[in-house]
């Protein structure tokens, strides 16, 4: 009888996304142009790294295939989340102008509604780029593909996406109190992906520690990737730490869920 919030949320999400996709597809040319533009921007983004490698052979001890592997995994995980939750940065505006009211009176979870709001299929551009780079790197990596490494690859992408998702949700929840803090959230999410595209060895150990113990971005791809690439952990954690990624992801999502609930309860609407 009582369906789980999760099922209700997914169902509502699918309904609203379906509606937005249908209505953007009504303007097909504009969609194609936007999607191509998106793809071009993300391609340019990688070109910087390509350029770097025309001058050096390694970055922080990682060769082109390895850096591309990091770039591809970070980009794919982030791309998945950005596609599914990218609209959440609009929460602050809804809090400020009080239009959150209208989402709260509907019989479906608010989280599903804000995530699906103005769903933009053009954001698949980044996933396409990420998967393409990942594919290229897999073909050029010199890795002994034991079963644990094979298994860790999809696990890494999914937990990475989940950690990013938790960050999006927590960032959106924060906007219930600080409704103009959308930039803080994108600093962590966009900033985070950019950082994860480079090997951890190019950063200070303090930073690596911070993104391990404070904001566990290192579990998105660094730690699992280090295991796959057979590299030592830069802050001396055991090699198997990469397998903790799903646990870290679950913990992050649970915390983000709590933050979101608290945010909703703190919502105060507007005077008119």
């Amino acid at each position: 009888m009582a369906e789980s919030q999760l099922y209700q949320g997914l169902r509502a999400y699918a309904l609203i996304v379906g509606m937005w996709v249908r209505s953007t597809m009504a303007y097909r040319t504009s969609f194609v142009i936007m999607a191509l533009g998106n793809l071009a921007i993300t391609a340019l983004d990688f070109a910087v790294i390509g350029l770097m490698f025309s001058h050096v052979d390694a970055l922080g001890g990682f060769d082109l295939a390895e850096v591309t592997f990091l770039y591809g995994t970070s980009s794919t995980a982030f791309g998945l989340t950005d596609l599914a939750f990218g609209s959440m940065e609009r929460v602050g505006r809804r809090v400020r102008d009080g239009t959150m009211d209208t989402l709260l009176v509907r019989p479906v979870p608010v989280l599903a509604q804000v995530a699906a709001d103005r769903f933009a299929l053009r954001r698949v551009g980044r996933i396409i780029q990420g998967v393409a780079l990942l594919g290229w790197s897999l073909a050029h990596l010199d890795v002994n593909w034991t079963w644990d490494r094979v298994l860790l690859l999809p696990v890494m992408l999914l937990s990475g996406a989940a950690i990013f998702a938790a960050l999006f949700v927590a960032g959106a929840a924060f906007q219930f109190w600080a409704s103009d803090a959308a930039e803080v959230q994108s600093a962590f999410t966009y900033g985070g992906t950019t950082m994860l595209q480079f090997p951890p060895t190019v950063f200070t150990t303090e930073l690596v520690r911070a993104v391990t113990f404070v904001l566990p971005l290192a579990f998105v791809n660094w730690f699992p990737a280090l295991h796959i690439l057979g590299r030592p952990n830069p802050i001396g954690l055991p090699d198997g730490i990469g397998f903790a990624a799903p646990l870290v992801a679950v913990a992050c999502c649970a915390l983000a869920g709590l933050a979101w609930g608290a945010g909703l309860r703190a919502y105060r609407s507007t005077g008119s």
Partner: protein
Amino acid sequence: MAANDAAFIELDAVEKVFTVRRRAGWMRRERHEVRAVDGISFQVPRGEVVGYIGPNGAGKSTTIKMLTGILVPSGGRLRVAGIDPSKERTRLARRMGVVFGQRTTLWWDLPLRDSYALVRRMYRIPDDRYRHNLERCVELLDLAELLEVPVRQLSLGQRMRGDIAAALLHDPDVLYLDEPTIGLDVISKVKVREFLREVNTEQNTTVLLTTHDLTDIEQLCQRVMVIDHGRVMYDGSLAGLHAVGESERTLVVDLERELPPIEGVPGARTVRVDGARQWLAFPAAASAAPIVAAVAAAYPLVDLSVREPDIEDVIAKMYAERSG
């Protein structure tokens, strides 16, 4: 279910306090409490239509936001159909319809028809109910021409009718209307009121509505609640409100020529003279007919009209009495 019917909506000492920061001098800010709802208690039986009125800032919208689960009360107890709105918001949402006059609940970029289709799937409205309800709304609210128009292109009055329809497609048990006739022209107002009355009688829908238009209350509500400063000032019938507020109606008469103030009409007094036009005030509860007859018998009457008391005046007067 039946146990809930006598107190379908139930508020017990409900409060909502907003903490706001106010500028207090240069750079300094002061925390300040606004008691928007300050201990309100009432019960509404199932099927009743209640007018919830009061001056600007009285706390009407805030009450509705707590009833719908948008805001969490700062204190007190609140139940709708036995459900605590802030705890089980989505479960209650299935059974309620909400219209905010100032704000649409429809999807800004979608044509009305698509918005309704989405509402149908969100609320899981059975096909036959949906078709029946949509047909009825389209007919009674005159929406046929508007179905293919994106919401953002609708005028305020058109959008309002679209919103009212959206709030009723799923046969809600309770309907909250926050200024539903704002921006409607005379014909639309009549249509909306007729439609709401029909919904209430046919489906026994409980209705709580706020408005600044006394006619809405007169034509729809069995019961009126007057709120001011977050408290209930009056709870009863409209006639009773007029008695409490000692409100007066005004008879405006145009005479053939300029004459001294009209005298000798029992139950009425002349309050204003402007050329051939004169204004006579009389108690709102009294009938206008004997007064008109008395004027017509003694004066050369050309034309006349009766003005209803302004609800804001009634409330203002009543409030002044209570506090003074």
